[in-house]
C-alpha cells in the first residue's frame, strides 16, 4: 500500500483536508500561484517517482477559465526503493509512473501558452472574489471523489458551516 500521499493545490479551501488513517503520511503543498505552478510542482514529484491519482485536466474548462488546479499524488516507497538502490547495475533506472508522466506532460503543454496569463491565487484573494470562490468550490467538488477514495476528509464548504 502506498505509504505517502501529497496534495498540491492553489485552492485554499482544501487547506483543511485531513487523512483518516494516521499511518499514511499525508502532506499538503498549498501554493500561492497559478494552475501552471501546481502542474510544475506535480511534474517534479512525478520525476521523483510519485504517481498521479487524478487526471490533471479534470473539469471541462479551458486553462484560462479555471483559476484553480489540484493534484493528489501517492508515493509507493517499496517500488521506489527497489529501483534506486545505488549500487545496482541491472535495475539502474529509477521508478517512474508512465501514465502520470504522460498526463502531466500533456497538461503542461496545454497550460503552457496560458502560463503567463493565469492569475496567481492566494487564500485572501479567494475569499474576496465571487469568481474565485466559485472556482474554488467547483475545484473542490471535482476533486471530491479522488480525495474521498484515498481516505482524505474534505472540509465542508465554509459557506455551509
Amino acid at each position: 500500500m502506498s505509504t505517502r500521499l501529497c496534495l498540491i493545490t492553489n485552492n485554499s479551501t482544501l487547506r483543511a483536508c485531513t487523512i483518516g488513517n494516521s499511518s499514511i503520511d499525508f502532506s499538503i503543498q498549498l501554493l500561492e500561484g497559478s494552475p501552471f505552478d501546481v502542474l510544475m510542482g506535480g511534474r517534479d514529484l512525478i520525476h521523483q517517482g510519485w504517481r498521479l491519482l487524478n487526471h490533471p485536466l479534470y473539469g471541462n474548462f479551458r486553462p484560462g477559465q479555471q483559476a484553480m488546479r489540484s493534484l493528489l499524488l501517492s508515493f509507493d516507497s517499496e517500488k521506489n526503493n527497489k529501483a534506486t538502490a545505488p549500487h545496482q547495475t541491472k535495475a539502474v533506472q529509477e521508478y517512474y509512473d508512465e501514465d502520470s508522466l504522460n498526463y502531466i506532460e500533456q497538461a503542461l503543454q496545454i497550460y503552457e501558452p496560458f502560463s503567463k496569463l493565469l492569475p496567481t491565487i492566494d487564500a485572501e484573494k479567494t475569499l474576496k472574489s465571487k469568481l474565485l470562490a466559485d472556482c474554488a468550490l467547483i475545484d473542490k467538488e471535482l476533486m471530491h471523489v479522488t480525495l474521498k477514495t484515498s481516505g482524505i476528509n474534505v472540509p465542508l464548504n465554509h459557506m455551509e458551516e
Partner: protein
Amino acid sequence: MSYRVLHYINQFFAGIGGEEKADISPEIRDGLVGPGQALNPALNGEAEIIKTFICGDNYFANNIDAVCAQVVALVKEAKIDALIAGPAFNAGRYGTACGAVCAAVAKECNIPVITALYPENPGVDLYRKLIPIVESSDSARGMGKAVPAMASVILKFLKKEELCKSDHSCLMEKGIRINMFYDENGAERAVAMLVKKLKGEEFTTEYKMPVFDRVEPRPAVKDMSKATIAIVTSGGIVPKGNPDHIAASSAQNYGEYDFANVKDLLQNEYITAHGGYDQTYANEDPDRVLPVDVLRDIEKEGKIGKLHNKFYTTVGNGTAVANALAFGKEIGQKLRDANVQAVILTST
C-alpha cells in the same frame, strides 16, 4: 502595367558554382537569371521579373537575419509587388533559405510570396504554416512542372483572385485546422466511416493522430576504434548564458557548439536551458545529460577513433514535431558532411 517581381536564387541556379561557391555573399542583378528565364514567360506578361537576388547557401545559413533584411529592403526600395524564391527541390539549405526569405518578406512587406520545395525538404516543415509552398519533385528535372504552378498561384494572389482547384492541388498543406460545414452531420459521417473500415474499404479520417514514421536501422559500426562518434542531446545542455537563446519549451532552433578542448562539462561553464525538468542536477554536473567526461576517457583509451569536436543540442520540451523533424534532418546532414560514423543521442 505589369506587376514587378523579385526572384531569389542560390549560387548554383545562378550558374556561379556548386558547394565550392556556397559562401558567396548576396548579389543583385537586373532582369532574369537561371530559372528566371523559364519563370518570366510563364507570368505571360501580367507580371515581370525585374530583379534577381542571388546568395550562397552557406552565406545565408550563417547570416539569416542580415540577408532577409537585405531582401526586405530591396523589395521596398524597388517597389516589388511579389517575391518568387527557388524552386529549391530537395536542396536542404537552399530550401530553408527560400522559406526564410519568403516568410520575412510576407511578414514585413505584406506582398504575395511563393516558393517550390520537395516534401522532404527541411524548409517545408519550418515554414509551411507561414507561406504558400508549391510541391515539387526532388530535383531540377521537376522545373517544368514547378514553374507554371508557381506562376499560376502568384498571379492569382497579385490579382486577388480565388485559387483554382489545380492551384490548391499543387500547394502543400499548411497543417492548420479550418472549421467547415459538411453535408451530413457528424454521426452519419462516423457510421459511414465505420461501415467502410469494416469492409476494408478506403476511408479518410477527418483528424490524423500524430504518428511517428519508422526509420530503417543503420548497420552496426564495424571498427569502433577507427570511428568518429558525435553526441547530440535534446536535454538542452548549452554553454553558460545560452548564446543562441534556445527556448525552455517549444524550441524554435538548435545549437552547434565546438568543445574540441573540453575534457569535462564543468558547473557554471555549461548549463541546461530545458524547462521540462528540475534543472538543479544538470546544472550541478552537465555530464549527467551529455557524457563528455566519460567519452573523453574512452577516446584517450583508443576505444573510439575520435569524438567529433562539435555537439548539437536543443530542448525537447513541447517541441513541435515539425521543428524537431527539421532540426534532425539538418543536424544529420551536417554530421554526414563531417563524415561522422555514429551518433549517441541523449535525452531526459
